[in-house]
């Protein structure tokens, strides 16, 4: 998705909403339930940044970096819940 965000931002938006959006909301909700408000906050802030990028026309040049920030926040959240992230998120 990060690669898509640079080359094909519209496709990255589709990928975000079709494959990641609901799961990321669930992750944020579980982090809140666990009491890790800071990790939930960073994740939701990063999601909102990507959503704003997708909604912008044209998407801003910062979109790949914002997607990268979201991946870092998601990875941190998964770590906090002791869930091993997929390999592409650890490289």
């Amino acid at each position, binding site marked *: 998705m990060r690669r898509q965000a640079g080359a094909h931002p519209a496709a990255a938006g589709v990928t975000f909403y079709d494959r990641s*959006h609901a799961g990321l909301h669930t992750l944020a909700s579980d982090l809140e339930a666990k009491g890790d408000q800071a990790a939930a906050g960073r994740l939701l802030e990063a999601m909102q940044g990507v959503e704003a990028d997708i909604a912008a026309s044209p998407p801003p040049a910062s979109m790949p970096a914002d997607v990268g920030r979201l991946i870092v926040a998601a990875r941190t959240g998964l770590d906090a819940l002791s869930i091993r992230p997929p390999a592409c998120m650890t490289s």
Partner: protein
Amino acid sequence: MKPRLAVCLVLLAALLAACSSGSGSSASGGTGDLVAETASYDLAVGPPSRFIEGLLAPDQRSIAYGTVELRFCFVGAKKATQPCRLGRTYRATFLPIPGTSLANPPSVPTALPPSQARGVYAADVAFDKAGFWEVEASARIDGKRRVGKSALQVFEHHFVPAPGEQAQPTDNLTFASPGVPPAAIDSRAANGPIPDSELHQTTIAAALAAHRPVLVVFSTPVYCVSRFCGPITDMVQGLAHDYANRAAFIHVEIWRDFDQHQVNKGAADWVFKNDDLTEPWVFLIAADGRITARWDNVATRAEIEPLLQQLPVLPK
């Protein structure tokens, strides 16, 4: 509530898919039943009020558009102890989350990628007993009848202010509030200006004192955790632009400080009840200070606008 392993495994799969470099958005069609999720907050015994239910295909595509059938059964006052005996059928219509409407929507329930359609089905439903209930949602999709079930709790009374009640004269934060971090007025303002300036000019208390109708949205644009989150604040901003001569329009940010788990008092007065914070909410308050209507979780312009059009134009 502890993190749910099964949910997290689904999440992991979703994240794994998100890492892939493929650009395709289609998912394989599922053949099983539907995944149903009750999206309503604050259900209570009483006259019919809006009930909303989200439906997903097993492959996580949204079920959207057309109508579905809802049937309910009571399964116990304290816990689910009795068999589900389904009652009458309610026909529920689709409410698209703002910003996700299709130009040419299908006329029947259809499984669509979330990037194309997200929303809930709504029907006015009356509950006659407090306790635990189940809802069965059924729809004909691709020629086959599909069914999903979810559980819900109905309380003796509403916890969140409801139509007919007097609105609380809340002193929510505005541009004029001294010493307030901008993000406490709108969570999107952490690194920039406060958006939707028309929504932060006055308080609910001041509007009530002036006998002006009020449309107020309680929301946190950044920190919303509902899977049905959408640009509800922007939708209210659009209404404020078009109907400024009929009502006051107010956005109350939920969080004073999200990291410190501090809720704005103006939001807590209304939506932090029974030890539970629910958002977003939209309330329409009449000039006499009584709540006319409320919308939980998902609110659409199509539902709110007709009520604003019925309000008289305010004197200048």
